[in-house]
């Protein structure tokens, strides 16, 4: 029996509210359904059951009015906490400082600093199994090129490639969630090149991969190798290094879907405004701007404050977890992500209510209204402060959330709905360029590319260069005929979705999300460029 030192003391401090027996029994039924599910793997069942247990907790100091915005059916829900649970046992996203680990090893894991490539890869694989997150898998696996570069010449190139291949395969088969993210770039390295070559050959969904790209810093041939890899395996995506650096400093990483966060920190929580449903509550544009949006933003911000307070002051995570104790993470490098989805629906609903013609993604007046709403969200966020977000000036970071499988008629972040994309890619990009700048903790757009581009990867690189000069933040491409495809922020294999559809179980939990998104989000119908 494990002894829980703090449990007694905590019980006295925290008011744990009663819940009804009816709710307990309903949850027990849901747990039974999970146990009996034919399509969940054992690990997926355990994770889902833990979520159900947590859902019985009532320990957060919730703001008044939250319930009718959060715990209601999908078509009226205005705030969503993305299944983070009722008693957060750890921050949502954790970004360990792997450089420190490589330099110093870990006492808790009983590992000395690695001395060669074999040890480096082995140490990392061990470490990953001890990095928690909302999905129970690490959302960040490191700047693999820079982490491995010091060791890459320990063996000859063929062997190095073989080792990297096994390493990446190991991640794909044990980190069972494509929200896991590796980074590469901005400078060219041998390790980076080999990793790209390996990823091109493997065509795997995990880990997600981002190249930090800066014109003038990242050489063209390295970037072109990345494009070529992306046209084979839908990754890497490209992050505007210059932009992220200017906002978060050099020590930022891209984790989970495309989230800019601080190395050695992370994000306590991510909640999202469902803008379309907030627009439904409004009489007109004025009512939306003056009453409905401020009301919901205020409640969501205070809900996030409550979650953060519990994590920092009550959960004990930052006192007891080895990551914090050994300095792989620092409480004061964490922030929180103030998310939003459904800008397209929001703008369309509001214009309709006003009797003004115009569609989001097509018409300038719709874009303009979208920008005004973003300005308002940004201004709200800049005046709201949280004592535990000192890493980002005491404020949350805005985040254009990519959506979840259940979302119906809710477009990710500020994206143009699939099927309504402008005829010409240039118009699509110029529209995006109005919105990306608001989201230091992540946004992105995805473009399936016609297969003829395989012959001309410079085409994609030119678009990346132009886009980043035009203040776009993050771009993903995949070839219209590839097996690995990008759903919203994460990757799945079409072949695995097909398996799941036919009732077989599949290794990675994101395949379930991918199936939902294929059905509800029409992701296979994106306009091919």
């Amino acid at each position: 029996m494990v002894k829980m030192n703090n449990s007694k003391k905590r019980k006295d401090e925290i008011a744990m509210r009663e819940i009804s027996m009816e709710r307990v029994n309903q949850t027990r039924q849901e747990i039974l359904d999970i146990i009996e599910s034919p399509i969940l793997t054992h690990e997926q069942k355990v994770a889902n059951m833990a979520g159900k247990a947590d859902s019985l907790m009532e320990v957060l100091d919730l703001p008044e009015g939250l319930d009718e915005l959060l715990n209601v059916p999908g078509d009226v829900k205005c705030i969503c906490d993305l299944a983070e649970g009722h008693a957060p046992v750890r921050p949502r996203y954790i970004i360990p400082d792997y450089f420190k680990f490589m330099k110093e090893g870990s006492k808790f894991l009983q590992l000395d600093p690695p001395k060669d490539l074999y040890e480096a890869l082995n140490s990392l694989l061990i470490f990953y199994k001890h990095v928690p997150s909302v999905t129970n898998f690490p959302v960040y696996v490191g700047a693999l090129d820079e982490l491995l570069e010091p060791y890459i010449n320990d063996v000859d190139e063929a062997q190095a490639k073989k080792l990297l291949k096994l390493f990446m395969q190991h991640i794909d088969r044990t980190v069972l969630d494509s929200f896991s993210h590796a980074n590469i770039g901005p400078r060219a390295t041998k390790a980076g090149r080999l990793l790209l070559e390996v990823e091109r050959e493997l065509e795997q969904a995990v880990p997600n991969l981002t190249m930090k790209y800066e014109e003038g810093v990242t050489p063209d041939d390295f970037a072109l190798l990345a494009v070529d890899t992306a046209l084979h395996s839908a990754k890497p995506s490209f992050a505007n290094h210059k932009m992220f650096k200017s906002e978060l400093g050099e020590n930022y990483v891209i984790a989970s879907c495309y989230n800019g966060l601080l190395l050695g920190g992370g994000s306590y929580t991510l909640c999202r405004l469902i803008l379309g449903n907030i627009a439904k509550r409004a009489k007109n544009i004025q009512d939306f701007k003056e009453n409905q949006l401020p009301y919901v933003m205020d409640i969501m911000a205070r809900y996030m404050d409550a979650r953060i307070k519990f994590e920092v002051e009550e959960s004990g995570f930052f006192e007891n977890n080895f990551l914090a104790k050994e300095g792989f993470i620092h409480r004061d490098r964490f922030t929180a992500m103030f998310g939003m989805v459904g800008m397209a629906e929001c703008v369309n609903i509001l214009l309709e209510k006003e009797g003004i013609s115009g569609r989001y993604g097509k018409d300038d007046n719709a874009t303009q209204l979208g920008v005004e709403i973003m300005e308002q969200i940004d201004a709200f966020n800049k005046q709201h402060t949280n004592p535990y977000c000192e890493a980002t000036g005491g404020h949350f970071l805005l985040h254009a959330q990519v959506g979840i499988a259940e979302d119906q008629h809710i477009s990710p972040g500020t994206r143009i709905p699939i099927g309504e994309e402008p005829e010409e890619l240039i118009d699509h990009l110029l529209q995006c360029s109005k919105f990306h700048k608001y989201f230091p903790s992540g946004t992105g757009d995805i473009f399936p590319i016609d297969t003829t581009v395989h012959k001309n990867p410079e085409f994609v690189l030119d678009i990346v260069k132009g886009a980043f000069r035009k203040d776009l933040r993050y771009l993903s491409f995949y070839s219209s005929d590839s097996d690995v495809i990008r759903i919203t922020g994460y990757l799945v294999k079409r072949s695995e979705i097909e398996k799941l559809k036919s009732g077989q179980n599949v290794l990675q939990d994101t395949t379930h999300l991918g199936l939902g998104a294929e059905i509800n989000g029409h992701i296979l119908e994106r306009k091919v460029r």
Partner: protein
Amino acid sequence: MKALVNKIIPFSAVDGPGNRTSVFLQGCNMNCRYCHNPETRKVCIGCGDCIEACPAGALFWMKDGNSRKVGYDPAKCVFCDTCIHICTHDASPRIQEMTPQETFDKVARQIPFIRGVTVSGGECTLYPEFLTEFFQICRDNGLGTLIDSNGTLDFKQYPELLAVTDGVMLDIKAFDETEHKTVTGISNGLVMENCRYLASLGKLYEVRTVVVPGLFDAEETVRKTAAMLRPYQKIQPIRYKIIAFRPMGVRKEYAGYPVPDSNLLESLAGIAREEGIGKVVII
């Protein structure tokens, strides 16, 4: 000075290196059997057939001095291509007369996403003065300039144009002159002269041959063209693009040729490489 512009494609991945805006000019002086956009060949004669056929009311009569011509309203057009299919004169009513500056204004929107422009057709060198001025404006704005041509303009006579042109992508429809006449209706004497001349200036970016089994000897064309270019490769490497015939868009009477299989295309690529071409692209 104006040119007849058939269309402008804002982003093109297939008209030269990187991302480029492609401008298609109207009118051509060859008659290639496999032409896949025959509606770019001639200039509208104003017969009016397409006006009635347009389902969207995008075409109409308009005054043209004392006479009348076909007007086109892009805002109404649904791009169904009915007008093109109905026209028996290898023309299109969706043509706009534009100055170099007006054309550039349509290109400017794509900056900085593109590295250059490519002008194609039809045969764009029917408008050498337009090209010269248009390219000058593009260059002034940091854009690269490529010409896609059938090689019937005597480039030697147009040094001002070449001075503002990065390179030419030249069609070699057939190496043998008689075969060239069969394919296009005219001799290739000037084409070959241009080919060597442009190569000697380092202004030949690419040669391309459309492979149509049964129409001409593609193997000979690829081999001899590549061999002819060998001495110039050190000035500026020249790519060979080998293009498979596809019946899409081709006039009915010529659409019956077989599509070459990938083995044939690969073997032609091999021949080009043997003859000293560094980069061969199959499309």
